[in-house]
């Protein structure tokens, strides 16, 4: 599948991937600053009639931002390509593997099938947003303590999904955890450790809410 283009707020054509994007993100941020100046009405008009470059305001890991993006841009692409938040992983890109799992307004979702255009007013939390001033989230620590991974590629998605699993009240037993973590595949087969990690962190995550 062709990768969707990133935000139109970035100046100039994309040249390559992450290394060069560091600079692009900075210029994108500058463009955002300009745009935020008076876009509310234009945004409302555009959405009523339809726009290939909608403008949307949202918060990611507690930081509120506004962007004008190609309508095709998924949350997954935006996080990785525009914000350089590469903790959220691209796996299948079709919501089959769970590597791209993030929380939107507290609920776990596949960011690969989430259009940025639909996120007006939403709060997104990624793997980069769950630790507290350098201290690991209890679920992160539990994955380390229980060898809940080998290669680690699926791990950010597993951890975000595990937090959602506990908050939804579906971490009551090992069989229930297996059922309600089934949206996250692990090619290394670390499932035993993953289930143990969710069981270990369950009480702490429940207390934290």
């Amino acid at each position, binding site marked *: *599948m062709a990768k969707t283009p990133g935000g139109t707020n970035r100046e100039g054509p994309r040249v390559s991937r992450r290394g060069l994007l560091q600079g692009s993100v900075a210029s994108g941020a500058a463009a955002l600053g300009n745009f935020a100046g008076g876009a509310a009405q234009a945004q409302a008009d555009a959405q009523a009639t339809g726009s290939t470059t909608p403008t949307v305001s949202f918060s990611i890991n507690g930081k509120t931002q506004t962007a004008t993006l190609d309508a095709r841009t998924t949350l997954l692409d935006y996080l990785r390509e525009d914000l350089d938040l590469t903790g959220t992983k691209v796996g299948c890109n079709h919501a089959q593997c769970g590597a791209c799992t993030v929380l939107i307004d507290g609920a776990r979702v596949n960011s690969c099938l989430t259009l940025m255009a639909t996120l007006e007013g939403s709060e997104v939390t990624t793997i980069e947003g769950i630790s507290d001033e350098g201290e690991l989230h209890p679920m992160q620590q539990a994955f380390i303590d229980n060898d809940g991974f080998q290669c680690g590629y699926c791990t950010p998605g597993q951890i975000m999904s595990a937090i959602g699993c506990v908050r939804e009240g579906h971490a009551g037993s090992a069989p229930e955890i297996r059922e309600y973590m089934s949206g996250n595949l692990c090619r290394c087969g670390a499932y035993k450790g993953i289930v143990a990690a969710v069981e270990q962190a369950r009480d702490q995550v429940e207390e934290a809410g």
Partner: protein
Amino acid sequence: MKSFAYQKPASAQAAVGMVDPMSAAGQGGAFLAGGTTVLDLMKLHVLTPDSLTDVKTLLPAGIEERDGALYVGAGTTMAAAAEHPAFRDRAPALSDALWKAASPQLRNVATLGGNVLQRTRCPYFRDVASACNKREPGSGCAATEGVNRLLAVLGTSEDCIATYAGDWANALILFDTQVEVTGPEGDRTIAFEDLHTLPGDTPAVETTLGDADLITGYLIDLPDWAWRSVYTKVRDRESYAFAVASAAVALDMEEDTIREARIGLGGVATVPWRARAAEDYLAGKTLTEETGLEAGRIAFADARGWGHNDFKIPLGQQTILRGLMEAAALTREGTQ
């Protein structure tokens, strides 16, 4: 994916006026709610709408009693509905069919309006390089002589053997359900059993909905014995997989005798499938392994295998037996 315009109208009625209907060839506009089918197929270029009209927050969400029936808003997510006491207590098949479908992440966003309209997972429908009468009318069917292990054995035609992929619809079809629809001509209702159409020689036509019609909710008439209902789903893996064969079963029983049985089938048919002949056979019978299997044989009497999927005929028969036994084993106290 192909470029499109995103639009978010102020109401469901306004959305109907804006959607700019999608033609069979996948041009025009499409509604967007959870997006779990539409965006997936857009990434594959199977759907190439010019616009997406976002109705997710415009659709009613929630489940409530209304006029002695159960009203379910089309914007209710699969996750919320699966957990709802009205489903879990009064008709567990409606809850089972949801939590046994998709993944927790998908169920958090997918809505019940879009759920019943989920497109087939036929690999030839999903591959734009293959012949497919559903995706491109007149191009032929690569599945009838292709790798068809997961495709349908009931309700097929020479032009299409694509399986209906959803689960919830196969349970919903057990109960008298009115689908509430808003469209260019205003509001109307469609009996759920009349919503999906057999492929015949027009497999691109899948429902009786008009191009700009939007499902807004369901009114479900649950008999008071619907607590004795299950959704038995056989899959290639234990969780997060489409049904190879599934059976939704509701039983009205007096001791071991069946007053009324209702059976819906999934994974084996081109549309949500009601096995009425098998239901008629079971009325007044004592449920045993023999009568259950006979019901299965009757349900698949007209089935046709296409090679790789021949096994679905005996498997489907056994799945009906298992569903009947699981439903019969439920006790009022045993349900939540």
